[in-house]
């Protein structure tokens, strides 16, 4: 009996112990998570966890909100589509309200962008993001942002805007902390946003600069040089284009010497910069000859491969890969009723949420409407009372790589101008979610950060690391009322180099490629250069000599990332491999605009949504001519007939588009493939930069040129093979293309619709498939005005379409403006404003932009407002 009692007692104690252990384990997992499992309790708590993000999915209602930091009350209005209008008593109050709005609707996006820029992504998503964090910390967006902020006078308008904006963001963060109503990502990851600072905004500015301006082209050249040889590399990836181009600034040009690089944020007076003239004795600047490359030191190719692997580990779109954007303007007889008209559609990764947040901001002396970038104060593209502007990427070479001379006997030093110098070291600790923090030491030379020491010590001199007062410049543009003020404001813009296209209420149009174009006195900047001093960046092209145009006699300016200048321009600005568009979009735009007078906003809209492929317009007659008098199989004959009847439009239902694109891809492969295989080009290191594809713009334009003007070019003959000419390769490639299409789409060429091969998708910024949009069959390709980058699924393209029309030339008219972007104002997938704008964009429709200038909105805008839901917030101090 006593033994039974003991047994029962022991069992009871055991039961208590196991129950307590299980309860403790459940409690611990719920409280703190386990491994990648988040803290389930707080995360799934219906009241405060991820579920609380449902509140952010609700449409705003009319209410009064208290925002500490405001000087006076601000009114914020929302139309039915979520487009916001801010009416404030001062610019700082307007910026504070904008910060609050951005945070309220785009906090996840802002935090992801700042983490990306500052090398803190691994803290949120774990070790998978370490390559990205290491890259960004090496490159130095955070260092540059801190330096910019440290040098910015606190009384400047930019500093005040940045501080007010950060205060607005932090007002929202305080509210979220109090209510627990965070966007779902934060409770799920268990990591919450820290307070916003001006440095965060400047880091996001750097991130955008990197997306538009940081390239690895010299590394690709190094590998091509090693595999194909210098002669073929420079022949097939030439500095100057060999096909027909449409520069927006056709010259004449004047060499004005080299201007010094401003390395601080304290900028010279804009007007004096414009008129300063030659900065270094007025000597004609050296222009590297577009010829053979110099001999690269051993190990450079290995270093290049390492650097390309680094870049390849970055999230898509983090460095510049595609040409971006269209913007054009017309005036005089080209526009119905006179006046000036402007259209712009920047091509960027099309994500949900979008890179843009549409807003109109009004304060005394500051009336602007357009799109802003969450994280940055101000409007990047839009119009004010007097002027409208849009941007396209200039595509010039802004990234230069230097092979530093080092010695084993002098560790941590490099030779520069015949003296050994010590590299500076900056150390970072990278917090990692679910792991121990990692440490990173970044070495710096006079050129910039050392990006690798594998094979060679290679540093990068990137114009994005030069402090650039972009916020101040944007404020200057937003308050400009004529071209002189616009031009003066842009004099301080350094990076990313952009073509700013302009139209005003007096009927003027213009364009300026603002930013730093680095100039070297010696060497071949398209390759990694020796870092010993002689090949250093000597300065930049003076502002007075950068590409520009104002009221051209043809009454049309079009920029579409084409080389902005003709071959006679006296400065080197980059090679064909620098992602200058081969001029297909620009040529299409000039052809359209020059052929019409009395254009309306509808005319511009038709051009913005055009999917005519200009390369097909140029080359297809020659392709079809190659089929004459030769035997084709019945299937090839039917495919050729489809191609013959095709209107050159890459419409989703077009079988001709499928045949054309497949043919062109196979034509590129048939021409260059044998050379690539024979030379063992290391394509795997950088598919977009080293592979043979339609996105390899150098090869595309070279092949176009040979097909039209040099059909017997020796390149058509494969190494060691029988002699071939262009028509022979065309026929072979056509046969291959038809076979490919038959295998993929069946035996009926009439059914080979482009939409069966090509679709478009707007992926979620969180990279969660289910939160994106599409893919859906879609038209367009890389060379159509309505561009679609990527096959089979395009994820880059027109991220915002805007058309602004100034009705007269008196300066008293109000602009009619409309715009649309594919996405929605809210980042919350549960919100009706998450993707509500996509159907408009997809169908080529626009929405009226809220009025700027306190004047009446356009009739369309008034109609939209009256019909729509109007909500007002009153923000009070």
């Amino acid at each position, binding site marked *: 009996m006593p033994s039974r009692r003991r047994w029962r007692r022991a069992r*009871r104690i055991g*039961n*208590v112990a*196991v*129950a*307590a252990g*299980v*309860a403790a384990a*459940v*409690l611990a997992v*719920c*409280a703190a998570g386990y491994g990648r499992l*988040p803290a*389930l*309790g*707080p995360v*799934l*708590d*219906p*009241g*405060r*966890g*991820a*579920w609380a*993000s*449902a*509140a952010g*999915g*609700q449409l705003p209602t009319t209410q009064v909100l208290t925002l500490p930091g405001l000087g006076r009350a601000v009114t914020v209005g929302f139309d039915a589509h979520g487009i916001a209008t801010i009416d404030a008593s001062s610019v700082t109050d307007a910026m504070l309200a904008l910060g609050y709005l951005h945070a309220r609707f785009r906090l996840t996006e802002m935090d992801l962008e700042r983490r990306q820029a500052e090398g803190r992504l691994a803290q949120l998503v774990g070790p998978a993001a370490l390559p990205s964090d290491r890259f960004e910390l090496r490159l130095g967006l955070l260092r540059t942002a801190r330096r910019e902020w440290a040098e910015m006078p606190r009384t400047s308008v930019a500093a005040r805007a940045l501080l007010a904006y950060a205060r607005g963001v932090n007002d929202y963060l305080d509210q979220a902390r109090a209510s*627990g109503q965070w966007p*779902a*990502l934060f409770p*799920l990851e268990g990591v919450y946003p820290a307070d916003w600072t001006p440095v965060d905004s400047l880091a996001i500015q750097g991130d955008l600069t990197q997306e538009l301006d940081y390239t690895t082209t010299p590394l690709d050249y190094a590998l091509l040089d090693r595999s194909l040889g210098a002669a073929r590399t420079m022949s097939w990836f030439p500095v100057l284009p060999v096909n027909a181009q449409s520069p927006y600034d056709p010259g004449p040009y004047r060499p004005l010497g080299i201007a010094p690089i401003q390395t601080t944020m304290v900028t010279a007076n804009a007007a004096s910069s414009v008129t300063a003239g030659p900065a270094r004795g007025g000597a004609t600047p050296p222009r590297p000859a577009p010829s053979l490359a110099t001999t690269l030191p051993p190990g450079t190719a290995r270093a290049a491969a390492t650097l390309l692997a680094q870049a390849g580990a970055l999230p898509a779109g983090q460095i510049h890969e595609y040409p971006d954007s269209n913007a054009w303007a017309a005036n005089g007889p080209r526009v119905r009723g006179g006046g000036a008209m402007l259209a712009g559609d920047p091509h960027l990764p099309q994500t949900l949420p979008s890179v843009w947040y549409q807003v109109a901001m009004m304060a005394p002396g500051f009336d602007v409407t357009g799109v802003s970038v969450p994280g940055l104060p101000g409007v990047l593209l839009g119009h004010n009372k007097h002027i409208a502007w849009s941007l396209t990427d200039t595509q010039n070479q802004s990234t230069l790589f230097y092979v530093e001379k080092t010695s084993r006997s002098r560790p941590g030093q490099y030779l520069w101008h015949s003296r050994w110098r010590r590299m500076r070291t900056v150390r970072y600790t990278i917090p990692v979610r679910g792991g121990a923090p990692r440490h990173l030491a970044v070495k710096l030379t006079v050129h910039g950060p050392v990006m690798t020491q594998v094979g060679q010590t290679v540093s990068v001199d990137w114009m994005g690391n030069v402090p650039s007062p972009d916020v101040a410049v944007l404020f200057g543009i937003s308050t400009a009322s004529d071209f002189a003020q616009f031009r003066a404001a842009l004099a301080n813009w350094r990076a990313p180099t952009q073509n700013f296209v302009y139209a005003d209420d007096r009927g003027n149009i213009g364009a300026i490629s603002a930013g730093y174009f680095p100039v070297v006195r010696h060497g071949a900047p398209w390759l990694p250069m020796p870092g010993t001093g002689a090949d250093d960046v000597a300065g930049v092209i003076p502002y007075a000599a950068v590409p520009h145009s104002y009221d051209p006699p043809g009454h049309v300016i079009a920029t579409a990332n084409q080389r902005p200048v003709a071959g006679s321009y006296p400065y080197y600005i980059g090679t064909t491999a620098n992602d200058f568009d081969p001029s297909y979009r620009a040529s299409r735009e000039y052809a359209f605009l020059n052929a019409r007078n009395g254009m309306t906003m509808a005319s511009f809209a038709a051009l913005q949504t055009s999917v005519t492929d200009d390369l097909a317009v140029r080359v297809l007659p020659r392709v079809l001519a190659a089929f004459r008098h030769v035997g084709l199989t019945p299937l090839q004959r039917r495919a050729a007939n489809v191609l013959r009847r095709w209107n050159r439009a890459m419409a989703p239902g077009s079988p001709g588009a499928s045949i054309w694109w497949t043919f062109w891809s196979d034509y590129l492969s048939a021409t260059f493939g044998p050379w690539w295989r024979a030379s063992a080009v290391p394509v795997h290191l950088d598919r977009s930069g080293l592979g043979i594809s339609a996105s390899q713009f150098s090869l595309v334009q070279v092949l176009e040129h040979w097909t039209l003007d040099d059909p017997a070019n020796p390149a058509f003959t494969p190494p060691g093979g029988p002699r071939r000419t262009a028509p022979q390769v065309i026929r072979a490639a056509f046969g291959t293309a038809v076979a490919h299409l038959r295998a993929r789409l069946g035996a009926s060429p009439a059914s080979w619709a482009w939409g069966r091969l090509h679709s478009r998708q707007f992926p979620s910024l*969180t990279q*969660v*498939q*289910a*939160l994106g949009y599409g893919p859906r069959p879609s038209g367009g390709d890389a060379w159509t005005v309505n561009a679609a980058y990527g096959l089979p699924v395009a994820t880059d393209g027109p991220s915002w379409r805007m058309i602004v029309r100034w009705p007269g030339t008196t300066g008293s008219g109000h602009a009619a403006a409309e715009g649309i972007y594919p996405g929605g104002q809210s980042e*919350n*997938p*549960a*919100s009706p404003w998450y993707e509500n704008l996509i159907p408009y964009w997809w169908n080529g429709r626009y929405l009226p932009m809220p009025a700027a200038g306190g004047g009446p909105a356009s009739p369309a805008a008034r109609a939209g407002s009256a019909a729509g839901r109007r909500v007002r917030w009153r923000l009070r101090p």
Partner: protein
Amino acid sequence: MNRLVSKSEATRLGKRGSYRLGGLAQQGVGRPAAPRPFRPSFTRAYHAGPAWAWVLGAVAGTGLVAAGAAGGLWFMPMVVGLAAGVAVRWGGWRLRVSTPVVAAMAAAGWGLALWIPALSGLPVGATARTIAALAGLPPYAAVAVGVTLAVSALQGLAGLWLGRALAPRPPEDEIDR
């Protein structure tokens, strides 16, 4: 073989009605009653207090879990489960009763905390889909809701177990497993 039956068989030999299907029919012995099907009892022979009080307690526990969720007290299902564990031990409820009831209380409490905002217009369904997608689960609302309710139920059950284990065992309660 039963000896008595053998003797009676001998006396019946050759008589009408003594044979059925080749065997001797039983005589004078009633048919045995059909075995009663097993019907598990969800209640003990007794439990403390009236049933309505226990139901009211369960409803109150559900309300507590829901209120705790609204207030950010995500551990309330475990607390309620713990209290329930002590109570059912004292009340003499069997495990087969208390387990589903406590799981239901916990799940219903969090379910209520989700349902009430949905009634007021919050996009709970769409949020559920977002949560499931961000968590790397199949992007269906039911998945996120199911996981949420399961976490609450798990907490409740862990609390129940601990409560029962800690509560003093009634001396007569020896067969309750």
